[in-house]
């Protein structure tokens, strides 16, 4: 019995999250994302809107290099649509027979083309700041989806008195240190949604966050559905194993 208490104590202490930032603890907004629960997945329409926001706003500076154009089939796009989307971007290929590198339109098997050739070029165009690749952003931050949403919506016009903004920086409620080089990327009406949804800042932020959550975890829906089947299977097997154990030990005094 005492051992059980110890195990529970161990489990509880194990639940304490690792590494908090020393100093201020920034509380992120808590959005009820469509994929939060064990049975939940993405909303394809939302992912498509998020792709539109990414394409029209974020892709100017942020790469998505781990995602391939063909992956967009998961958002409900057909082969022709994906070919057309990819064809808008130029990919470096080669060398050709003359030994020269050349560019060609992207095809579905290519990965998303980055806006800058390399990190140095990116920094040069952004006052020394590097717009990070977004393929894994939602997994690379604690409470990632809420973090990305907070990034999009956490700008404030009024800079609090105790804060001195460095040159080229913007005040941000949620970014660690409260100063961020990126100017506010989204606002009401910055995109016009093809499905007619009203493009408020909040809606755009939710949609692009959902899209980036998918980009970071494209396997999410398959993972959860497989998980349900595996847990059900193991649940059934557990009770069978218990029955077998009891039957085997029936005649032993123990």
């Amino acid at each position: 019995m005492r051992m059980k208490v110890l195990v529970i104590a161990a489990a509880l202490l194990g639940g304490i999250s690792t590494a908090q930032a020393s100093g201020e603890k920034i509380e992120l907004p808590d959005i009820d994302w469509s994929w939060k629960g064990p049975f939940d997945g993405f909303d394809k329409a939302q992912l498509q809107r998020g792709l539109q926001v990414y394409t029209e706003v974020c892709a100017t500076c942020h790469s998505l290099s781990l995602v391939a154009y063909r992956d967009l089939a998961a958002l409900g796009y057909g082969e022709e649509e994906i070919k057309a989307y990819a064809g808008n971007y130029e990919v470096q290929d080669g060398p050709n027979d003359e030994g020269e590198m050349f560019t060609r339109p992207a095809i579905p098997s290519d990965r998303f083309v980055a806006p800058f050739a390399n990190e140095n070029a990116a920094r040069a165009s952004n006052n020394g700041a590097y717009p990070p690749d977004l393929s894994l952003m939602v997994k690379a931050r604690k409470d990632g989806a809420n973090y990305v949403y907070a990034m999009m919506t956490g700008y404030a016009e009024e800079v609090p008195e105790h804060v001195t903004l460095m040159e080229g920086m913007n005040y941000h409620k949620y970014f660690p240190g409260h100063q961020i080089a990126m100017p506010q990327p989204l606002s009401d009406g910055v995109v016009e949604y093809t499905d007619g949804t009203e493009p408020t800042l909040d809606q755009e932020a939710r949609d692009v966050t959902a899209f980036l959550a998918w980009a970071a975890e494209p396997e999410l829906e398959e993972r959860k559905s497989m998980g349900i089947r595996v847990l059900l299977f193991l649940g059934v097997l557990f009770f069978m194993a218990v029955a077998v154990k009891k039957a085997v030990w029936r005649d032993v005094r123990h």
Partner: protein
Amino acid sequence: MADEVQTPESDDEGARRREFLYLATLGVGAVGAAAFAWPLIDSMNPAADTLALSSIEVDLSPIQEGQSITVKWRGKPVFIRRRTPKEIDEARAAKPADLVDPQPDEERVQQPEWLILVGVCTHLGCIPLGQKSGEPRGDYGGWFCPCHGSHYDTSGRIRKGPAPKNLQVPHYVFLDDNTVRIG
């Protein structure tokens, strides 16, 4: 179980039930083990990025009559030649008796102008010459494999030399007059 009257019958019955339980549990466990083994095995099958390159689309419009290009498909070279009428006639004129691996030219092309072949010699796998201008094309105007001297004609069929079979024709489909999808 409630108080069991220990008659030989119910003892037997109990034993049968237990045997069934053991067998059923083992069976369910085995299914689980097989289900676990499948992803391990399937992970060795071609991955999505490999499969995405399993077919390629080629734009034929820049190719002049008489010109050949080479494209890479599934790690191998594919020869695409836009044949001249002379080359087509020569291919059609060959009699089965002349051929090492008899096959009419009509069976090897969908459109007579466009010859699409896997550029790997059927002997021991070298890449035959004849794609670039200046390269030898062999005695039959097609391709010549420098490794062991196989000669292929304007339909890519083996005519002379150690290769046993004609150059392989890959699966392809014309998406329109200027675009072909190979694979």
